[in-house]
């Protein structure tokens, strides 16, 4: 096969040169659609350069996975069953095909991206499914099991180490997106020694309980500073990019627009009729037709629809659409170390106030919290006593007492990491029409 080279801002070149089916997979419509899905949702409202796509990110994850597997095959050939490598490479390329417009921002309306992804891969009429089945009839199920958070009924559980490479606290996805998002946004906090991380990976078997065992992805002590750098990068990127107050505010506004449109559609057939065809997904539904519409649903379609809604008869919908398109008119405030139920009474007052001002509180008041975002900083205690290499970052040294496994923030010399991985303050943010900022801030104090 002739070598196919892609220029890439992170890796200079990405090559697909061994298996022709991988290039065909990249050219499937489901993959090509990702060119029109923004990797960082509305982060471009904060960082004008953050306009890169899910497509370039997926290609990057594929590249990192290729390198990682080449390295692992040298030392751990027996860990691979036939077809494992194909499944891991395909999963790396396809892991984001289920994203709706503006990525995570619209998941409440167009479905969880992992569930969509599994549906697309296992749907017998999708181009992706046909191609994978052509390579090996078991391949679609194997790829789906690697990506699915909840194992599809009857599917075989993939080995823990393979799940760890696809989706864990330190997976190939994060190794690419942190650096890519950093480069494209211009927020230069996301850099770390990724090459060392993937070229020092080890696989070690651990007894979980009784006779139950799992093969963990671990790193040796000599890689601890590269891993530390990764955790700091993730923390900074979370603080400065993923949880930026402007981005989160406009993504909240986007959700309110879609919620408002859904509410109107319930009682207004003409409104429903006038929707752009892929936007009819807002009305819900499942099955083949749903997937066909999803394939056509991209950032451009959603933006076109919102542009049309700017002139809608419904004043709330047109006003919200205009605020988004002109990037204006949102006020905000935040409460550090709070929890939503603690704020319930104050929020009730704000909602009443907005109603009294002729603004529907369901569509004009946005609540956001650090617990919600899909990108989170590493939290060392989250996994509790159930640590594996999926929910924790583990190091291994046979000289360490007991099993030799140790969660990264407990490793000697790295306890300083606990300052950013333990006891993270909970932040609650509230967004509302800018013109009511003074009054609402007072009510929330």
């Amino acid at each position: 096969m002739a070598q196919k080279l892609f220029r890439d801002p992170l890796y200079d070149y990405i090559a697909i040169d061994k298996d022709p089916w991988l290039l065909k997979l990249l050219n499937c419509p489901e993959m090509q659609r990702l060119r029109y899905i923004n990797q960082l949702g509305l982060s471009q409202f904060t960082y004008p350069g953050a306009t890169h796509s899910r497509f370039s990110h997926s290609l990057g994850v594929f590249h990192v996975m290729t390198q990682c597997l080449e390295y692992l095959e040298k030392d751990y050939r027996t860990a691979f069953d036939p077809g494992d490598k194909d499944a891991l490479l395909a999963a790396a390329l396809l892991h984001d095909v289920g994203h709706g417009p503006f990525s995570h921002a619209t998941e409440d309306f167009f479905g969880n991206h992992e569930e969509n992804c599994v549906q697309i891969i296992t749907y017998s009429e999708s181009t992706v499914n046909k191609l994978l089945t052509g390579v090996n009839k078991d391949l679609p199920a194997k790829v789906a099991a690697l990506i699915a958070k909840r194992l599809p009924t009857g599917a075989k559980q993939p080995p823990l180490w393979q799940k760890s490479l696809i989706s864990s606290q330190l997976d190939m996805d994060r190794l690419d997106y942190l650096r890519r998002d950093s480069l494209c946004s211009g927020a230069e906090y996301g850099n770390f020694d990724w090459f060392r991380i993937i070229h020092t990976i080890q696989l070690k078997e651990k007894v979980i309980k009784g006779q139950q065992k799992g093969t963990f992805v671990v790193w040796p002590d000599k890689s601890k500073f590269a891993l530390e750098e990764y955790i700091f990068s993730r923390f900074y990127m979370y603080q400065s990019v993923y949880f930026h107050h402007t981005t989160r505010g406009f993504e909240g506004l986007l959700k309110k627009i879609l919620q408002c449109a859904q509410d109107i559609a319930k009682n207004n057939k003409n409104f429903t009729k006038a929707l752009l065809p892929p936007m009819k997904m807002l009305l819900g539904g499942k099955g083949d037709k749903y997937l066909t519409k999803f394939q056509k649903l991209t950032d451009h379609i959603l933006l076109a629809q919102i542009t049309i809604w700017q002139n809608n008869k419904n004043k709330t919908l047109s006003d919200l659409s205009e605020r988004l398109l002109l990037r204006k008119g949102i006020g905000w405030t935040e409460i550090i170390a709070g929890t939503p139920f603690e704020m319930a009474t104050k929020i009730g007052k704000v909602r009443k106030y907005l109603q009294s001002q002729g603004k529907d509180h369901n569509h004009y008041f946005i609540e956001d919290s650090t617990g919600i975002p899909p990108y989170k900083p590493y939290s060392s205690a989250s996994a509790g006593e159930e640590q594996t290499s999926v929910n924790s970052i583990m190091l291994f040294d046979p000289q360490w007492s007991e099993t030799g496994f140790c969660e990264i923030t407990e490793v000697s010399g790295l306890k300083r990491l606990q300052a950013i991985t333990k006891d993270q303050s909970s932040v609650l943010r509230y967004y509302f029409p800018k013109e009511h900022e003074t009054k609402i801030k007072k009510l929330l104090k």
Partner: protein
Amino acid sequence: MKDYWLAKLISSVTEVDSRKRLQKSIYLLQRAGCPLQFSYILHYYGPYSFELASLIDQLKGADIIDESAEPTGLSNIRYKSKIKEKGKHVLKNFEKSETGKDMYGQIKPFIPNFQSLNEEDPWVLELAATVAYFNEGNWTEAQKQTATFKKLSKNDKNLKKAFALASA
């Protein structure tokens, strides 16, 4: 109001001695109809919810609960949680409001069950949650699947206890 319900359950016992216990107890409560509908996946230790783990972090960050880490070996730490004074105060205030009264009414029937799960053997609790996870209407099949998943004999006495707990 998942944050309130979770804090309320934790406040109903002196302490919860591990995150694992909390994960499995809440799963069993959910299967019994508790409104706390966290999404769970099958993890290597049985049903596990990233969402719940994240909410515990949030309650801790909001100063509602206190969590202490107790090393039980180099690679093992046990996380004990209990309600803080500030948490008690916030819960009390919230329960004075109409929403608070309503939310309390919804969680109240499940509090005794949570208290009793908090006394269970952790290994039996883990097995019980796993049996409940596999149960799709056929308890015998669920028990069989749990035995395979946990590499146990079908006649394991803890598995039998777990089955009794999950199907109660």
